[in-house]
């Protein structure tokens, strides 16, 4: 193992390349995220946004490069469960919740704490208090649906439930993949509000195509293209960038 670079960043991606059958999904990608920062990632399809999340969460091993979390852990050497337990939470593009469980049980399983089979059989996981579950559900305004099955929720509600599961997990870094896909305008605005609220206490990376939503977030934007950073800066600066307009936004 090479010596880790000293960094204050909560996430420090350095020179990451991933190739699938010769196709370079990520090409020398470098990106830094400060503690407490929320970052929006935009870019055309195939720019490497989801692959980047796969690398950070241990689903995909990069060919080269390193991903340092919290200045100490090289994520490229760990697997999904280890990374999750270090404090990285991920929301999938397609809302993924436990459909045959009630909302309360979805949160119960997500809440931080011991995760071994033994603790689930006899230990701590059986003593999770309802108050904690209610608190998380209230934050995404799903408390009234507490005992419903997650499969009965609308698409937008499932997105929120999944975000609530991330909150319950209480990670240091949240990766949120297209949170407003399929949401109404009102829901989109509420989600932006929710994420800004969350970013007060967590570092967040949001991948989104909806420029209106990205504008609502009002945070630093990174535009990816062909596996590396094309532009970075405020939403106004990035959307005025000639190259970004050319490859992504269109004229």
């Amino acid at each position, binding site marked *: 193992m090479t010596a880790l670079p000293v960094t204050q960043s909560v996430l420090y991606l350095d020179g990451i390349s991933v190739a699938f059958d010769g196709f370079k999904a990520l090409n020398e990608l470098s990106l830094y995220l400060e503690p407490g920062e929320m970052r929006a990632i935009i870019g055309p399809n195939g720019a490497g946004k989801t692959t980047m999340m796969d690398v950070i969460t241990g689903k995909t091993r990069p060919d080269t490069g390193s991903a340092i979390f919290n200045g100490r852990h090289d994520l490229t050497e760990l697997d999904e*469960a280890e990374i999750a337990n270090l404090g990285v939470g991920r929301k999938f593009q397609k809302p993924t919740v436990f459909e*045959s469980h009630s909302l309360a*049980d979805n949160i119960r*399983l997500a809440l931080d704490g011991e995760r*071994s*089979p033994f603790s689930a059989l006899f230990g701590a996981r*059986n003593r999770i208090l309802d108050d904690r579950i209610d608190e998380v559900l209230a934050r995404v305004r799903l408390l009234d649906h507490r005992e419903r*099955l997650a499969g009965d929720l609308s698409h937008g509600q499932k997105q929120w439930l999944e975000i609530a599961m991330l909150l319950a*997990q209480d990670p240091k870094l949240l990766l949120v993949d297209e949170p407003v896909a399929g949401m109404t305008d009102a829901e989109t605005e509420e989600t932006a509000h929710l994420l800004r609220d969350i970013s007060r206490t967590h570092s967040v990376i949001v991948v989104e195509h909806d420029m209106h939503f990205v504008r609502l977030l009002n945070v630093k934007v990174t535009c990816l293209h062909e596996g590396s950073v094309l532009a970075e800066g405020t939403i106004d600066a990035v959307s005025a960038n000639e190259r970004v307009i050319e490859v992504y936004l269109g004229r």
Partner: protein
Amino acid sequence: MITRALFNLSDTGSRTFLGVLLAIAILVPLSNLTLAPDHALHVPTHIVSLVGKYLCYAILAVALDLVWGFCGILSLGHAAFFALGGYAMGMYLMRQIGTRGVYADPILPDFMVFLNWKDLPWFWWGFDSFFFAALMIVLVPGLLAFVFGWLAFRSRVTGVYLSIITQAMTYALMLAFFRNEMGFGGNNGLTDFKDILGFDIQAQTTRVGLFIATVATLALTYIVCRLLVTSTYGKVLVAIRDAESRTRFLGYRVEHYKLVAFVASACIAGIAGALYVPQVGIINPSEFAPANSIEAVIWVAVGGRGTLTGAALGAVAVNFAKSVFTTGALAPYWLFVLGGLFIVTTLFLPKGIVGTAGDLIRRLRGDRAAAGKTTQDSAPVRQPAE
């Protein structure tokens, strides 16, 4: 903890199931032992053993439902664990024969004398003790499941690939056990048992005793599995079944959860096999046949996946049908019936008998909210092999 356990066993399904088992455990022996043979309600001893055999299959089905219905692991090799438990019991029964065998060797079973073996192979040591045999009945299938599951789940072998390698596992064991050199009686297997725990294995009272032990084991198996699946552990199992990657990204070690369920299921299957052997009087390598494992899957599908009670009901119903069909004029058609049953279940009763009946009852009660909920229970149906 105990109140929670009692609460989780207080639902209608559990109470009905355990109530029926209790009634069977009392009424069948009572009828067999006290009523005259020509009495209309008399249950002959061979029927007692036949029902006992069905109930052994029911235990196997409940074990299979634990991994398939709740964790989505479609094992097509569960008969292997059943047969291994059966062989461990068979070895104990062989050692009990002693000098009553054809060759009257006090130590060596007949087939070893026949093969001109001079000493008892090391893996037969200790099987003269019931306690040791009982230990092996659980440990051997459990250990095989542990090693197999450890390798498969760690490498993330899932779905149809896992099903295929479990099938290969049981097939390989069948071929191995067919060989005389393996030391398990080869083709003929183990049979001609004389007594168990000092009781004559053919005696009516012993048969009834074995029957009661089987019913009790089925009840206990149900209680253990029901407590498992209603615990937080069981909720994680269902979470893995429905959204494995979500569970993983929440920080759960999916492979550990699967392994625990798989090993527990294999141990239960071993116990079922051990109860089966003294009641049918023989164990041979054909018990490892891949078709047996597939039949077990059909029992669970017919009865209702993810219900436990349905698995047991399916095992008894399908095997009763098998007994009816395979004796008499209909015998050549049994495999067609079995195949047809599987297709009909898959197409028209995806939730099996118990799952569908549960829906009907809820609908009749007009409880629409609840009926809406249970349609969501069909989540596993959409991804049968996952």
